[in-house]
């Protein structure tokens, strides 16, 4: 046994052993964090008990006591149902907003690079104006200065039973479900499945033979054919609900209220201005060689955009776009300022009517976390699919 082997196998004392220190440090760190959290929670529970406020989640089963307009929610239903109704509204606003903002953002972003000077300038004006103003201000301004200024219901703008426009909302005809709506929807689901099958078949045929696939036309044709057959077979699956103007409002039809519109359009206008910048940056980031090659191949500018530049730009713009989608979702909480009953407003009202604040806000944050993480997950999947191998 030589001295060196003895030295190599002897471990350093614990206070100099990195592995021991690492574990010890992490244990200490966790101890500090956990004890801090427990300290805060302990204080909270103590203070709540001292004031006689409940510390559990039993408040969720209490009747809400407030009604939610534009929905079927009645005040006798539970707080839990109210929060779910609010969450539903938030989701609808978020998803609709994301769709509209993306479309508008891409249009304006492309317009920023248009060869027409006027269009370029107008797009730049829009982007620079809306990007630099707080979104809350845009929403409140739209509501108070635009939507409330529409004519009151007594002087509403009507057009032959088709739409009614007033400061109580825009009402358009809607589809009313009848008895045979259920079977019809089943037929529609069948049609969509068949269209997907047709799409895959045509793509496979294209891969095998190289003949043009026209898969979009084929899919649409399949859907149209099956839906038409189903429509005739089930009689009248949908009735038409036409708006009827009364003194106080419009009965029937589908109503887009001024508060909801102000929130939606405010979010869309603001987020689209950011998306336009991202789109412009992504298009500029696609190497100029691609555009020149497309020109050399004789593609028209529109074809160049659609077939060469945009697909490559999409890959670049997905992560910042995802960020904007998350921002839009979180900004939907600003409906609280103009009486849109999304989940933040519902939580706020229920706190004022007696629900304990810490638990209610915790649930609120959890709901937003779930929605945010879902959107992040979907965009991550898309990003990975589009990434270069």
């Amino acid at each position, binding site marked *: 046994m030589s001295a060196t082997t003895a030295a190599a196998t002897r471990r350093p004392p614990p206070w100099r052993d990195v592995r021991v220190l690492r574990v010890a440090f992490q*244990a200490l760190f966790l101890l500090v964090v956990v004890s801090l959290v427990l300290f*805060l929670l302990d204080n909270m529970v103590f203070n709540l008990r001292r004031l006689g406020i409940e510390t559990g989640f039993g408040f969720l089963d209490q009747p809400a006591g407030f009604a939610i307009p534009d929905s079927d929610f009645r005040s006798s239903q539970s707080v839990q149902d109210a929060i779910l109704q609010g969450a539903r509204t938030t989701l609808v606003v978020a998803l609709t907003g994301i769709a509209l903002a993306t479309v508008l953002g891409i249009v304006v972003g492309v317009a920023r690079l248009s*060869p027409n000077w006027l269009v370029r300038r107008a797009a730049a004006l829009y982007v620079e104006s809306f990007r630099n103003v707080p979104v809350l201000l845009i929403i409140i*301004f739209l509501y108070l200065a635009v939507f409330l200024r529409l004519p009151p219901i007594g002087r509403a703008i009507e057009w032959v039973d088709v739409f009614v426009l007033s400061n109580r909302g825009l009402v358009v005809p809607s589809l009313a479900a009848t008895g045979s709506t259920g079977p019809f929807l089943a037929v529609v689901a069948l049609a969509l499945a068949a269209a997907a099958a047709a799409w895959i078949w045509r793509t496979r045929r294209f891969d095998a033979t190289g003949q043009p696939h026209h898969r979009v036309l084929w899919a649409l044709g399949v859907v149209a054919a099956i839906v038409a057959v189903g429509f005739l077979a089930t009689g009248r699956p949908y009735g038409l609900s036409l708006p009827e103007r009364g003194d106080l409002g419009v009965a029937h039809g589908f109503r887009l209220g001024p508060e909801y519109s102000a929130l939606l359009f405010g979010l869309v206008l603001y987020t689209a201005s950011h998306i336009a910048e991202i789109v412009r940056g992504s298009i500029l980031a696609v190497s100029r060689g691609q555009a020149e090659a497309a020109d050399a191949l004789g593609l028209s500018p529109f074809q160049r955009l659609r077939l060469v530049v945009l697909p490559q730009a999409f890959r670049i713009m997905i992560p910042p776009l995802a960020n904007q989608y998350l921002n839009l979702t979180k900004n939907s909480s600003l409906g609280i300022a103009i009486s849109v009953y999304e989940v933040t407003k519902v939580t706020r009202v229920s706190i004022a009517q007696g629900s304990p604040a810490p638990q209610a806000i915790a649930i609120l944050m959890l709901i937003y976390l779930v929605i945010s993480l879902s959107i992040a997950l979907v965009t991550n999947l898309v990003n990975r699919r589009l990434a270069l191998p």
Partner: protein
Amino acid sequence: MSVLESAAQEPLPLPDPPRRRLGPRAWARENLFSGPVNTAVTIVFGLLLAWVLYRIGRFVLVDARWEIIQRNIENLLVFRYPRDELWRLWGALFVLAAGFGLAAGIGSRGAAHATALTALRRAAPMLVLVGVLLAFAGSLQATLLVAAIAATAVAARALGTRLPLRGRLAPAIGLASLLGAYLLVAHFGGVGWEDWGGFHLTIFLAVGGIVLSFPLGVLLALGRRSRLPAVRWVCIAYIELIRGVPLITILFMGAFMLGFFLPEGIETPSAVTRALVAITIFTSAYVAEIVRGGLQSVPRGQVEAAQALGLSTLKTTRLIVLPQALRAVIPATVGQFISLFKDTSLVFIVGLTELLGVAEAITKQPDFLAQGLLVETLLFAAFVYWAGSYWMSRESQRLERRLGVGER
């Protein structure tokens, strides 16, 4: 002269490439009327744009009643700050002008001198904002004071370029002037931040938020990259939790719950403090992500070279990695500050009267009640936010170009 000798002389200077100078008609033909589609678009758009601009112009210049802004300009800027202590705010502006001018001068030593025209173009949005504010204030004293402040800033900058101080002192001088301004306004007989309001409160929340959240954000970013799983997961949990929820929920948490978390015997903080804590917690998560991007952008070769030189991990982080990382994230941080500046409008929902809150409150005064003047006040508030944001984003783009950091 021999061939070799002539070749050894300086090559003739190349002429500049010919610049395309189109006459107005040729320019219009190319940009506006180059084809049938383009012409149609130009005509339609032109008419639409002209109509929109006409309506807006007519409203702003003719129909709108700006009297409410004129009478309330002090309220909009400082709300309830005692009017006989306003000299403190003016003094603070002087201190900030001197400090930031000096810092800008030190930082730009050696850079090419800008012409007066470019300097004016850079400052244009700020000048427009100040001009509008002075027009509404209509006070000669205010105009003279503003001119004096501008002169101080310019003089300080000129002084800074001449002083033999190290460039690293520039941020320190900036922070020192911020501290000095704060002390002047809040202490020594001044009014504490619980009673601030209006645009003053907006600036305070934005600047305070970013200054307080930056150290926390850097720590979180370093923690997230730590090799110790406990530290890393705690930091990830914090960052993802805070980034996943809207600012308004954190503001609610601060407004409704902060008092419950504190043990008894500790006084509940004021509303402004609670909002500032909420803003700091919120911004620190975003700053952490920004700094993390910066840390990732430092090439591994730097760390390896530092290790080869025998620097400890702490020294490497402090001397090699962090300076490069922070330099890289300056544009993104300015972008976050601009976002924060706009997001301070949300504290209106938890009852603080910053610029948006004052814009709503002054329409309740007996002289202006129920006359629909919210349009004018909201437009004014929007203009102030717009001018500040636009100016800062232009400065940030300039900074980006100067630092040579490309960002998509």
